[in-house]
């Protein structure tokens, strides 16, 4: 079936099987490999993207279900001149990543979290990131980065 998505402002249509997962559509049909697959069972958050502005796990959504909608991936955050999104900049400055595997999903989850609540406490940040696992950082600097942006 034909599925059309607006990904990072670019409309694209691809002929895919109905069982195609959104994350496959993004990585394989659209060729945007910034979005990672970790657990493939909706537990780790590595595949987090925005659907119409809200964070979702793209390994647990069918591309067909979101036909015609707007998707933003990690590639869509920075400006075209390379200026990083404030959350990416804060991750950089707070050293909120080590191996980087969780980072695309983590950044997308963090952006959505701040958009929904601009007055986050540290506890709310930790709880709000319950759906994203990081095996390296111990989360501490990720929380710092989010607070930096939400207080800004």
């Amino acid at each position: 079936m034909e599925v059309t998505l607006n990904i990072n402002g670019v409309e694209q249509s691809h002929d895919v099987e109905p069982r195609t997962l959104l994350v496959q559509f993004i990585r394989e049909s659209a060729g945007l490999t910034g979005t990672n697959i970790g657990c493939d069972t909706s537990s780790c958050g590595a595949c987090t993207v925005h659907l119409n502005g809200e964070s979702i796990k793209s390994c647990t959504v069918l591309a067909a279900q979101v036909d015609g909608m707007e998707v933003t991936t990690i590639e869509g955050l920075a400006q075209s001149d390379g200026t990083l999104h404030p959350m990416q900049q804060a991750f950089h400055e707070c050293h909120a990543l080590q191996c980087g595997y969780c980072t695309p999903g983590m950044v997308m989850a963090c952006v959505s979290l701040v958009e929904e609540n601009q007055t986050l406490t540290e506890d709310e940040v930790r709880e709000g990131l319950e759906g994203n696992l990081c095996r390296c950082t111990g989360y501490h600097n990720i929380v710092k980065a989010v607070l930096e942006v939400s207080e800004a």
Partner: protein
Amino acid sequence: MIPANFDYLRVDSVEGALEALQEHGDEAKLIAGGHSLLPLMKFRLSAPAYLVDINRLDDLKYVREENGSLVIGALTRHSDIEANSLVKKNAGLLASATHHVGDPQVRHRGTIGGAIAHGDPASDIPSALLALNATVVVTGPEGTRDIPIDDFFVGFLETDLKDDEMLTQIKVPSVPDAKWSFQKFNRRAQDWAIVGASVLVNNGQSGVSLVNMHSTPFRATAVEEAIASGANAKEASEQAAIGTEPTSDINASVEYRKHLARVLVKRGLEEAGL
């Protein structure tokens, strides 16, 4: 992991959904948020031949007040319920239980109708709805019928919904003055409950129910009866495991689950002012 092949049908009305169900019978499955169904399909534990997508039924996404009740459309997402001021004011227990579901990404997709129709005893939402004495409204070829929540869950992942019916609305009596508590015990924030408890106390009446303690969402009748005959929180909570048949798994043994049920009900009752 990729689900088995299926034919995808997108419908834009309740009538359209019912027609698809009638045409394809038990070969068809409705998909709402997909956050219970897709994981099962990816593990190939479920392989429907037809998937009927009801996500675009925007008419079923609402929270309203009607005749002293909150009425909630089946397709309303968890994130819209937990943040809704009417729900927070008139059914705070439901807002709290919904907030405890999974994580923000899951709550952006999952729907209240899907959470109930799935009939999972480990789900937080049915437990809150039991304590709140909700009514489930289902629509089929013959029209709509109201099912008291106590009659809705009939077995493990089994509900009173017929193959050709869909869940369209949930009615929750408004109880703005009730005291309530939602208790969930798990190891990591995002996890399902190892055991959970919903407690509601309103005008001397109580509603007490348990998560993951039985083959179905479970009303702790023995606790409610103890409270009605004047027991305090400690005495009433001692009855919490009566009638339950929890399973034993990697997280907890049967005995430990029963212990948790008593502890969580006691905490809940105390928090609800008993």
